[in-house]
């Protein structure tokens, strides 16, 4: 299990909603990560619409959100799938909306709750996060900040590519271990 994730950060402000992460007129694309990924973050960073593969081509693999990241009361998984399709490997936020946090974890995208993170990160900073301890290091500035660590179970979801896949795998593993 890869316990550390490092990459280039994109900083957004407070109250980025599910609708801004992936616009409502894209929801009919289904949960295809690659397709959704082309349109990810268009409501936050409109210039991605002028780039061939959108947000993905900007090379940000860590998104840092302010308060209530992914809010708007929607329980759908599309915003998280879109971020995954855009190559995002880690979310960190001052606070997450409840359903965006649950869906990130359930889809195997690590999400670290870290109040104060937006004060110590700028867009393009290189961050390194330890999923087990919750420690986040800004390699560009040298500042360290403590976030909420992920539990073993959640790390298992990340490793297997999501909660349902984790449980599916668990059942497949049973007969093998009997043999």
């Amino acid at each position, binding site marked *: 299990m890869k316990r550390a994730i490092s990459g280039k950060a994109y900083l957004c402000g*407070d*109250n980025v909603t599910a609708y801004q992460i992936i616009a409502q007129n894209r929801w009919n694309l289904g949960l295809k990560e690659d397709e959704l990924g082309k349109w990810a973050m268009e409501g936050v960073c409109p210039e991605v619409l002028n780039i061939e593969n959108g947000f993905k081509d900007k090379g940000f693999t860590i998104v840092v959100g302010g*308060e*209530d990241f992914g*809010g708007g*009361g929607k*329980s759908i*998984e599309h915003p998280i799938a879109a971020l995954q399709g855009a190559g995002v490997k880690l979310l960190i936020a001052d*606070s*997450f*909306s*409840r*359903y965006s*946090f*649950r*869906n990130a*974890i*359930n889809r195997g995208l690590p999400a670290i*709750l870290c109040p104060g993170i937006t004060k110590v990160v700028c867009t393009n900073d290189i961050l390194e996060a330890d999923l087990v301890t919750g420690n986040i290091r800004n390699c560009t500035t040298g500042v360290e900040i403590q976030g*909420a*660590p*992920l*539990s073993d*179970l*959640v790390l298992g979801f990340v490793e297997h590519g999501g*909660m*349902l896949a984790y*449980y*599916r795998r668990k*059942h*497949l593993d049973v007969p093998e271990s009997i043999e």
Partner: protein
Amino acid sequence: MGSTIIEKICSRAAGKQVKVGEIVDVSVDRLFINDFQGPIVFSQFESLNSKTVMNPDRILFGLDHRVPPADVQSANNHRICRQFCTKYGIERFAEIGRHGIGHQLMVEQFTRPGEVALGTDSHATMYGALGALSCGITSSDAAVIMESGKIWLQVPPSIRINVVGKLKTGVTAKDLSLAMIKLAPVNEFIYKAVEIGGECIRDMSVSGRLVIANMAAEMGVKCSVIEADEKTLKFVGCTAEECHLDSPDPDAVYEKVFTLDASSVEPLIACPHNVDNVQEVVQVAGLPVDQVFLGSCTNGRMEDLEQALEILDGRKVCKGVRLLVVPASQTVMLEAVEKGYIEKFIRAGAAIMTPSCASCAGAGAGLIGDEERAVATTNRNFKGRMGSARGEVFLASAYVAAAAAVSGKICDPRDFLKEVAAK
């Protein structure tokens, strides 16, 4: 350092002392699945290759969004759910005729204080009124609970709301819940546990507490909880030894503490198209009304019907207005029949509907048309929620709803209550 009620329940369910912000695996005591999410939950469960459902006796399946079905797709969805529950031994299947809004069934006969009780619907926060940890979950969460009996939860920080003073005549738990939404910007409550107590809540009926916990969902909370007491035990029908009555420690740590004076609350109304667009009823008095909806998991219990009848008994629904009365469950319906309430509503000119979510979430009968205005005792008034996106929904108490039905316009219900008192 002491613990809040939610931290105590989380610790017990996780089998260890938990810390705020920590992600823990908790055992789930009660799971509610509705007909809206059921087919998705069941297909996700079957994709897990599990042969059996863990603890089927801890699951309640409620048909409530499309009851009875009015289109073939809904009928087929019900059929899928019925077959699945039979196959996997989920016996607590609320078949049509023994049905009700699932949240109401969860509190009437199932959830106990101190439990972890989750549901595939955002107003699952309601069971917190019984001193349980309760919140809404996604369909894949429900599938995993059926497979493993557990789910991951993040331990939320708690915010305390102390409600002091007494509610004035004609002011209800619904008005108080709308006052709470205005306590702070919605962002303050997101993902938090809101612990609600104080003398006003202690004096309040369990029915009123259910309104408060139900409406807390509109504050963006993860969960809301009210300390269980003798009233709670009587309501759920168990003894203190058969459940866990959790109190917050004196040195429990809250992120914030609010005090709300109940005696300062006036009859309130949430205006279109957001629940936090709260005004005093008198500020919008005089607006004509086309439909009045009395029901839902928020306000479809005996106490709500009684409040409405304080105004409606012996009066008539105004010409040009339709009043829909939807008791929250068959248990409520039967009691309302036995006490003669249903007859009084019919004599007043109301339409009685079978228990269900009806038009509250736009999934059932009772929709409003273009340019129509509804006063509803429900919990959401988003654009198009109760039918036409060109219609308007105002949320208020059973008193305000009944007064609107009689007068044909939004008005202060205390004008009618004074007449009642004068008689």
